[in-house]
């Protein structure tokens, strides 16, 4: 058990949730619930890995991963925005579609070694005791990007004019529409942004923090955790980043708990019987299920600050709005 290592790993794997969670925040802030994160992530992970392998160009792989997630999300946009269908059903189908595509096209990728996104130390900062090794040493470029990304996303949503339009569209689309804001276009755009970020999250796994292609184990349900995280984070990118890092550290910490025979001077039950740790490994998923169940209750959603029009298709001029 080494806190430095746990926190370091937390930041690395937390970056996956950070991108996916913030992507979902963009979509949900615009009023569109996209339950297809897992599918978009897996497709992104596969596409990035595959392209990086075949072209030997990791940057091209990264771009394709992002676009793969984005393009897949447009299917959800078409179904829910244009055809105004149920967002839950469409999102679930998207997960099946994305997962299916990724598994088919990902056949034979296991065990391959494409070029990866570079990891490096930040000169100077890495030397700071404790802080340096945790935050600024031996991290993938994408982890460093994540440090900036969350505050930027927060600033964009809360302090810019386009960000205000985004909030309005998810809160009361009819009001935005009557003020000349193009609700349909913005909703498409932010669903696409969410998809791109899910794709990026996928590539963060397969090309950076835990490289490789392990079919559906590559994402192992982190897309769902990202959706739960959005509720925990109350649709706030900063909290989503913190939550992502926390989940990441939790996962690593649970693994590390199995190592030592003695824990705080007592016999470690996890060391004696590794079955115990299954339950611990479940915690992120259990928390996610809890968040999703609680988050689906209208009263709680309201208190947490969910966008008021989340999940509701916008139909121009409909009465009683």
């Amino acid at each position, binding site marked *: 058990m080494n806190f430095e290592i746990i926190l370091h790993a937390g930041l690395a794997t937390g970056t996956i949730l950070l991108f996916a969670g913030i992507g979902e925040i963009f979509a949900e802030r615009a009023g569109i619930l996209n339950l297809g994160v897992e599918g978009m992530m897996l497709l992104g992970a596969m596409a990035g890995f595959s392209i990086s392998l075949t072209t030997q160009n990791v940057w091209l792989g990264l771009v394709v991963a992002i676009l793969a997630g984005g393009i897949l999300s447009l299917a959800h946009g078409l179904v829910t925005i244009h055809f105004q269908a149920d967002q839950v059903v469409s999102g679930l189908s998207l997960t099946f579609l994305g997962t299916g595509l990724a598994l088919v096209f990902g056949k034979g990728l296991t065990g391959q070694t494409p070029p990866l996104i570079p990891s490096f130390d930040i000169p100077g900062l890495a030397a700071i005791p404790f802080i340096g090794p945790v935050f600024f040493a031996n991290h993938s470029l994408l982890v460093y990007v994540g440090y900036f990304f969350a505050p930027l996303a927060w600033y964009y949503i809360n302090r*810019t004019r386009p960000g205000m339009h985004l909030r*309005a569209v998810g809160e009361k689309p009819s009001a935005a529409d009557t003020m000349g804001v193009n609700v349909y276009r913005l909703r498409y755009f932010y669903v696409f942004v969410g998809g791109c970020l899910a794709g990026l999250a996928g590539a963060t796994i397969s090309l950076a923090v835990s490289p490789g292609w392990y079919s559906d184990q590559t994402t192992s349900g982190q897309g769902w955790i990202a959706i739960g995280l959005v509720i925990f984070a109350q649709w706030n990118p900063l909290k989503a980043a913190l939550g992502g890092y926390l989940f990441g550290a939790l996962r690593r910490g649970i693994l590390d708990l199995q190592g030592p025979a003695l824990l705080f001077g007592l016999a470690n039950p996890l060391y004696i019987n590794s079955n115990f740790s299954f339950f611990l490994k479940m915690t992120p998923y259990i928390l996610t299920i809890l968040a999703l169940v609680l988050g689906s209750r209208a009263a709680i959603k309201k208190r947490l600050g969910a966008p008021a029009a989340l999940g509701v298709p916008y139909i121009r001029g409909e009465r*009683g709005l």
Partner: protein
Amino acid sequence: MSNDNLLPSGLPRIESLEMRGIVKKFPGVLANDHVDFDVKAGEIHALLGENGAGKSTLMKILYGLYHPEEGGIYLNGRPITINSPTDSLNHGIGMIHQHFMLVDNLTVAENVALGLKSSREPRLDLDVVSARVRELADKYGLRVDPDTVISKMAVGERQRVEIVKALYRGAALLVLDEPTAVLTPQEVDDLFVIFRQMAADGHALIFISHKLDEIFALTDRVTVLRDGRVTGAVLTSETNKNKLANMMVGREVSLTRERPSVTPGKARLKLENVSAVNEDGQPVLININLVVRSGEIVGVAGVSGNGQRPLAEAIAGLQRVGNGRVLMDDQDVTNLAPAQMFDAGLAYIPEERMHDGVIKDFSVAENFILQDHVRPPFAKGIFLNFKQIAAHAQELINAFSIKTPSRETLVKNLSGGNIQKLILARELARQPRVIIAAQPTRGVDIGATEYIHAQLLKQRSAGLATLLISEDLDEVKALSDRIVVLFGGEIMGELSHEEATPEKLGLLMAGEREIEKMIYTFDKGR
């Protein structure tokens, strides 16, 4: 261009706007049938008509929310196309919608800036917007603070925000779709001052309201719609209330109410020292004592937000009663569930009819059996008896002359007045002993209002105990045997039908209990 053609905001005036031969169909309804309509700079033009006559539809077409099947729009004589609100805004057309179009968790300034580029793209320039909002607010005497979040505002304030929004964009032509429906008389007067000033400045205004007094107080011309067709266009100065009512409804409408004398019977509904708190723990009802007898209408007057809604909901079982008791026919029914209250003989016409009164995605027939769908004759075990349900629906539709394309039509597609009639029909068909009618005619046209009032009075004669909660003083005064006034969750005083003058009610509504006591002892002493 000479200065005469510009508004104070520097934008060009709309000298004339014409809509010609507008046709708009919805499934089963011809909402606009070759409608011609026009408005000029400096004019306030009223659009009048029953619920569902097609007023909002016509205005939504002008604003780009609907596309007409036929017809054209002409600005200063030239044809224009309007495909979306963006187009209409660019032409200088603004609209205040029948329902608030405000984003609740944004501030006034943010709502105003919505849809506009910022002067500091991509960053917000809310300080600039706020300053300009203050300027406008000063010029028109509108009390709004640009930095307040909408969710913290009362309805009157929100309406002022809507006006600021329109003024900010210039709004050479401003459509006002029932802007006064939820306002107090004082707020209405304040708004009218602003509308008149706007007209004097050269804006063109279109004003929709069901209140004939307002039409005469404010407007220059009136166009009347009935079933989607124009039935008259007259100068306001050359017409009168009865003529307008006639054009709207197509028959004589009685604007006064006959209250036959009825001797009240036994006490049906009793509230004893009822107190309640809201979700945040704030008291919303304080020591309410109230009796409603059989054959009696007790009016509850007051400015909105002074406990009317908690009062109705405390009786209906939707608001927890903290202290005190609610009795129906001397039985303690405090904090029973709504279903139990309905079974005990309560009928409830809720204030938020779309939200609490109907399921808007259910059909008319289904909405008629919301309470009784579990028992015969509508149900047999777990099966519904569709024949009975249909027959019941048809009977009520006929008896209450509810205007609907069919009994299978979804309720959300009915007009406000007809939804209100539907609720009334459903509640009265259950043969209740006590009825709570909260804002029963808000936003309802004069024909339906007359009908609803007549029904309430008829039921009064038949022995129903009625609690009438309304902000419309004329309505309370016209129907009630006794009137209590709510202020800050407390009953300020009680007046009989005869002693309830607008002045006395006004004082009580403003929370002047002492003066009420004086009047009370004075009257008693006499």
